[in-house]
C-alpha cells in the first residue's frame, strides 16, 4: 500500500495536550515539516512562550528553550547572536507577543534580528482561560469583556504584521490562516519562506497564523474554523505585508 502521509521528523512522539479542534497542533506540524524539508531540524533552536504552547519544548524535535512571558524574541536574540549559524525561531501566542512582549517583538524587528517568529493569533488568552487579548475583536465576548470588547473602554485590536512591516529590519511578514486546507498549505509555504530568508541572512521574519481556540470561544471545532473565516480574516487581512530581500 502506498504511504500517503507520515509524521514529520520535526516533531517528537509526545502526545500534545491541545484541546480538540485547536489549531496549535496544525501550526506545530507545518513548522516542523518546514524544518524537516529544509534540513534544519538539527540546526534549529526553538523558543517556547508562556501560553498554551508552553509545552512546545516537548513537541518540536529540536533544541528548545522556554522563555519568560513575552520575552521570546529577546531570548532568541541572545541565542542567534552567539550562534549565528543556527536557525532560531520563536513560537508565541497573541498575549505573549502583542501585549506583555510588544517591546521585545518590535525591537527584535527594528534591529533586523535574523530570527523567525511564528505568531499564533487566536484573539484570546487561551491558557489562562479566555481573557481579552490585544487581538480580540471589537464586540468579542471574553471572560474580561463580558459584554463584548468595547473599543471605547478596551481599545482596539493590534495588527502586528501591518505594524512590523513599517520597520526596515523586517524582511518578511505574512499573515496566513489555519481555517481550511488551502490556507494551511499557504501557511506552510510562508514558514518555508521565512526560514529560508533567515538562512540567507535577510533579517527579521514573522508568520502570523490566524488560529482557532474552540474551548475559550465556546464553539465546536468546525464552528471555530468558520469564526476565523467570518470574523478574523475581515479584520486581519491575509497576505504578504513586506518582502525585503536585502543581505545585511
Amino acid at each position: 500500500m502506498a504511504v500517503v502521509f507520515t509524521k514529520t521528523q520535526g516533531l517528537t512522539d509526545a502526545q500534545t495536550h491541545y484541546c480538540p479542534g485547536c489549531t496549535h497542533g496544525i501550526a506545530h506540524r507545518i513548522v516542523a515539516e518546514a524544518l524537516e524539508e529544509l534540513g534544519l531540524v538539527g540546526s534549529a533552536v526553538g523558543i517556547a512562550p508562556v501560553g498554551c504552547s508552553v509545552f512546545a519544548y516537548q513537541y518540536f524535535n529540536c533544541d528548545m528553550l522556554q522563555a519568560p512571558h513575552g520575552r521570546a524574541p529577546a531570548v532568541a536574540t541572545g541565542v542567534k547572536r552567539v550562534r549565528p549559524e543556527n536557525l532560531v525561531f520563536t513560537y508565541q501566542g497573541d498575549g505573549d507577543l502583542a501585549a506583555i512582549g510588544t517591546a521585545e517583538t518590535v525591537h527584535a524587528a527594528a534591529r533586523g534580528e535574523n530570527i523567525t517568529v511564528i505568531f499564533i493569533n487566536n484573539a484570546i488568552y487561551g491558557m489562562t482561560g479566555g481573557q481579552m487579548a490585544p487581538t480580540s475583536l471589537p464586540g468579542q465576548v471574553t471572560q474580561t469583556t463580558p459584554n463584548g470588547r468595547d473599543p471605547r473602554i478596551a481599545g482596539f485590536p493590534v495588527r502586528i504584521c501591518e505594524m512590523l512591516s513599517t520597520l526596515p529590519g523586517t524582511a518578511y511578514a505574512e499573515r496566513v490562516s489555519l481555517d481550511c486546507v488551502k490556507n494551511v498549505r499557504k501557511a506552510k509555504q510562508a514558514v518555508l519562506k521565512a526560514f529560508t530568508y533567515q538562512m540567507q541572512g535577510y533579517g527579521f521574519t514573522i508568520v502570523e497564523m490566524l488560529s482557532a481556540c474552540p474551548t475559550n470561544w465556546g464553539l465546536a471545532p468546525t464552528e471555530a474554523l468558520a469564526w476565523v473565516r467570518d470574523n478574523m480574516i475581515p479584520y486581519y487581512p491575509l497576505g504578504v505585508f513586506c518582502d525585503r530581500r536585502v543581505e545585511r
Partner: protein
Amino acid sequence: MARKVLAKGNEALAEAAIAAGCRGFFGYPITPQTDVAAYMARRMPQVGGVYVQAESEIAAVNMVMGAAAAGARALTSSSSPGISLKSETISYLAGCDLPAVIINMQRAGPGLGGIQPSQADYFQATKGLAHGDFHLIVLAPYSVQEMADFMVLAFDLADRYRTPVMLLGDGMLGQMMEPVVFPEPVKTLPEKSWAVTGTKGKRPPNIINSLYIQPDELETLVLERYKRYEAIQREETRFETFFADDAEVLLTAYGSTARIAKSAVLALREKGVKAGLFRPVTLWPFPQEALRQAAAAAEYVLCVEMSMGQMVEDVRLAVNGAKPVHFYGRTGGVVPSPAEIIEQVTRIREGS
C-alpha cells in the same frame, strides 16, 4: 610578570569579563554603570564578541538567558532600578540552571532614588530578588583589583554550579581608579553538553526549561538545587579579616563601606582602641560561622552600611545574641565617613 595598570573600576571589570571569556554583553544605559556598556561596545567587536544595546533591562537579561542557554559566557550590567526589572528572568535563570553573570552597581533608592553610591540592594541581592526558592551567589568586591578578579571568579562559579552570579558593587567602586593587575585570559572554557546549539542530528534535543507541572517533580529539582547551594555554602564562602584577632570592637562592612571601615580601624587603633574589621566577600553565601567565631572575642559588633540596615540582619543571625550588635548607616547615596564611625564607637563606649 603581570603588569600593573591604573584603571577605573567599571573598566577593570569589563576588561576582566573579556579575559574570563565573556563574549556576549547585553545592556541598557543607567548611571552609574553606563561606562561598563560603553567599554564593551568598543571592546566586544575587537575580540569577536557580541554587544547589544537592548530596548530595556528586561530584554537585556533575556538576551543573556538566550546566549547563556546557547553555551556562551554572557553578562549584563545595570544599577538598582534596572536590576528590579531583570528580576523575573534572574529567577528563570536559576530555575533553568543557567550560568550567567549580573552586575549591580548600586545607586540610592527607593524609586528613582539618586545616582550616588548605595548598599540598599543587599536584601534584594541576597534574599528577595524574585519569585521562588532560589539563591544567587553574590560577590562583593571592595577594590578595583577585586572588581577584576571577581569577574573571572563569577564566571567560573556560574559555570561550576550552573547558577546565576551577581557582582554587587556600587557607584563609588565603579568610578574609582586604582592600580590593577589584569587576570590572564582564560584559555579553555568548560564543555556545556546541555546547551541549545542544535542537535546536528547527533543527539536527542536539549531542553532548557523551568516549568514542571508535577509538584513532586518540581520539588525533586528544587531539592537537588538546594544540595548544590549547600556545596556552595561549604566550598565558596569568602571573607576577609583586618585586625580582627584581638579586636574588642569588631566592625562589619562590605564593599566600598569596608574601605571606610578599614580607615576607621586604623584611626581607632592609633587612639588605642582595639578595633578590627570583618568583611564578608560573598554576601550569599554569608560567612556566618566565620563571623560567629570572629565576634566571640569581641566586646561588641558594629555593622556599618550605606543603607538603613540590611546586612546587619545577617550579622545578628550569625552572632546569635552572643554579643551586642550595633548598627550605623547612612541612607543610600550618603557615604559614611571614618570620623562618623569613630564617633559611633565612642558613643557606644560611653553607653549613649
